[in-house]
């Protein structure tokens, strides 16, 4: 009934290779985009923006970045929090150092800085593999957080050691600082998310992505068939760092506004983003969205159900949340190692055959 490719004839190479080959998918995609850009900004209020939409958008970018590294290239990283901190502090230095340049470029530049740092810490990946690498990236996590805490230049010698986002505008509308309207911040993040997803999606299905996946599946075999592991791994670290840096910059400048590095970008942040891509699906851009949505919504839902409806104390709900998230990770790894994205794929496959499955 729905979801048929019958009658949807491709007449040229470009049409045959498009991201969404099935018409209903394509329409759905445009519909979602239109809804996100044209409808949501009029409905949004501060609660929705701060509790759900902004974190979702920003974590999605981080998840896409980490998914490129872990899901596509197979290099497990536990340093995401540290790299997000690099993005945040780079953005802060750019914002305060060059106030005349638009914040859009500051965010892009901080992505670039993070890519550079990420490559530096990724260099050992040529020698170290598997969870040895995972632990090695912990060095990045702890060292970077310590660095931003200890070197006053990074926080402009402020007395509190915090960084605060000054007000910056895009087209005359403030997107950072206390006078920001919810819709402006939302749209700003959305633009970055859509761009990131587009770039990531097209990178991963092109030559670069194939090389990453070859390295992930078996690096020695990949090397033998002519994939340069140095270039493949370093490029994965760079691209991943770029997206993670952007998300860190947005997280600081638009979402929080003020950041104390140890609290915000600690090791728990690294695990959170890693959980997002495990639950969402390793090696899938859609999975990054699904995982981010899931882990952003879960605490909100738990809080609404546990604290507001049942009247439980907040600490119990927080502990329950740990239990549920941990349990879900295990359940997902057992039942569906490819995460929510795979569930979605299976559903689509079923829909194509429905109502005559045989």
């Amino acid at each position: 009934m729905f979801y048929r490719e019958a009658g949807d004839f491709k007449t040229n190479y470009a049409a045959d290779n498009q991201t969404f080959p099935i018409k209903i998918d394509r329409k759905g995609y445009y519909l979602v985009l239109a809804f996100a850009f044209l409808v949501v900004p009029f409905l949004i209020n501060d609660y929705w923006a701060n509790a759900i939409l902004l974190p979702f958008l920003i974590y999605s970018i981080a998840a896409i970045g980490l998914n490129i590294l872990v899901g596509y290239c197979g290099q497990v990283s536990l340093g995401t929090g540290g790299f997000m901190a690099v993005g945040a502090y780079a953005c802060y230095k750019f914002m305060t150092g060059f106030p005349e340049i638009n914040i859009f470029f500051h965010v892009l530049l901080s992505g670039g800085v993070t890519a550079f740092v990420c490559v530096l810490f990724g260099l050992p990946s040529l020698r170290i593999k598997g969870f040895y690498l995972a632990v090695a990236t912990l060095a990045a996590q702890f060292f970077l957080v310590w660095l931003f805490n200890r070197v006053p230049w990074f926080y402009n010698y402020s007395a509190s050691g915090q960084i605060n986002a000054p007000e910056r505008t895009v087209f005359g509308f403030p997107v950072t600082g206390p006078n920001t309207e919810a819709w402006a911040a939302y749209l700003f993040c959305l633009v970055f998310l859509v761009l990131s997803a587009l770039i990531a999606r097209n990178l991963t299905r092109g030559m670069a992505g194939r090389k990453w996946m070859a390295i992930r599946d078996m690096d020695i075999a990949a090397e033998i068939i002519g994939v340069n592991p140095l270039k493949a791994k370093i490029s994965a670290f760079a691209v991943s760092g770029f997206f993670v840096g952007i998300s860190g910059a947005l997280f600081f400048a638009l979402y929080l506004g003020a950041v104390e590095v140890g609290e915000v970008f600690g090791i728990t942040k690294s695990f959170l983003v890693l959980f997002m891509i495990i639950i969402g699906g390793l090696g899938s851009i859609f999975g990054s969205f699904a995982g981010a949505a899931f882990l952003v919504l879960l605490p909100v839902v738990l809080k609404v159900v546990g604290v507001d409806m049942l009247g439980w104390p907040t600490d119990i709900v927080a502990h329950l949340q740990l239990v549920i998230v941990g349990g879900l990770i295990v359940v997902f790894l057992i039942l569906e190692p490819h995460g929510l994205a795979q569930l979605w794929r299976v559903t689509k496959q079923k829909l194509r055959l429905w109502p005559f499955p045989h």
Partner: protein
Amino acid sequence: MPEQLVFAMEVFANGLMSGVLYALVALGFVLIYKASGIFNFAQGVMALFAAMTLVGIQNGQIPFAHLINAIFGTHIHHFGWNVPSFAALILTVGVMILLAWAVQKFVFRHLVGQEPIILFMATIGLAYFLEGFADLMWNSEIKTLTFCLPGELCLPQGMNTAIDEAAFDAWGVGFFIDNLDISAAIVAIVLVVALVAFSQYTKQGRAMRAVADDHQAALSVGISLNFIWVLVWSLAGFVALVAGIMWGAKSGVQFSLSLIALKALPVLMLGGFTSIPGAIVGGLIIGVGEKMFEYCFGIGQCFGGIINLGGATENWFAYVLALVFLVFRPQGLFGEKIIERV
């Protein structure tokens, strides 16, 4: 003897002692890794869980009291009795064996044959689960742990006055070393000797080594993999309990205990994942290294204080050391050489 040198020696000795504690946690990792190829990230949380259970049983706390109160509106907290340490220890070992069985039955039996990295992530999930579970069960406030064997033989606290006085007599400068650290070192030595004896001279120990050597071959000579895995997880649980008691007595039973697990990772990288002596040597190197580095460069006490990084270098030193070290020797000091085939 110059005061500076005595201080440095003091730092060195304290580093050795905290290295012993790292090694204790790392031991649990090695046990599980050797027998099942699982890199158990949850080891630190297991130590936390064990220590919390021990304290909870000792104090007669009602498990899940907080949750029960929230659901049923009751006000229960304690059974109203105190369990002697030794009995509580036995009960806690029982709980850890139960935990080992449950982990094996509900998690890792379903993940046999998966890639190591998937297993690793499963243990991260397990760590989160256990942490939340422990907090729900015994609530998350910081608890003090006092552990006494029958006959008023308690874990000592405070500094060792005998060594301090001896040092003062010899060099004219006091030498600070914690009593607890000394007992931790003794316990660690006893534990390692016991573990080695167990794996060398008992039937189960031999079976354990066989499984570590080759799963298939072990299966074919009639060793039950399932039993061995439960056994190994129980042993790791016991090691976690010992580590939990030592850390708990030192700095209170609290969440930061589980962060020690993270410190145990670089210890393992240095020592190699498959080697018990490696875990110990790695632990000592990391313990001494981070204390000395902090003393010399972190707070700038060496070489006239030319390098002063402003302290708290202990947070990252271990990881950076492991990172640098691994680049030159990816299998660690005592690990088996990694051979890769297509």
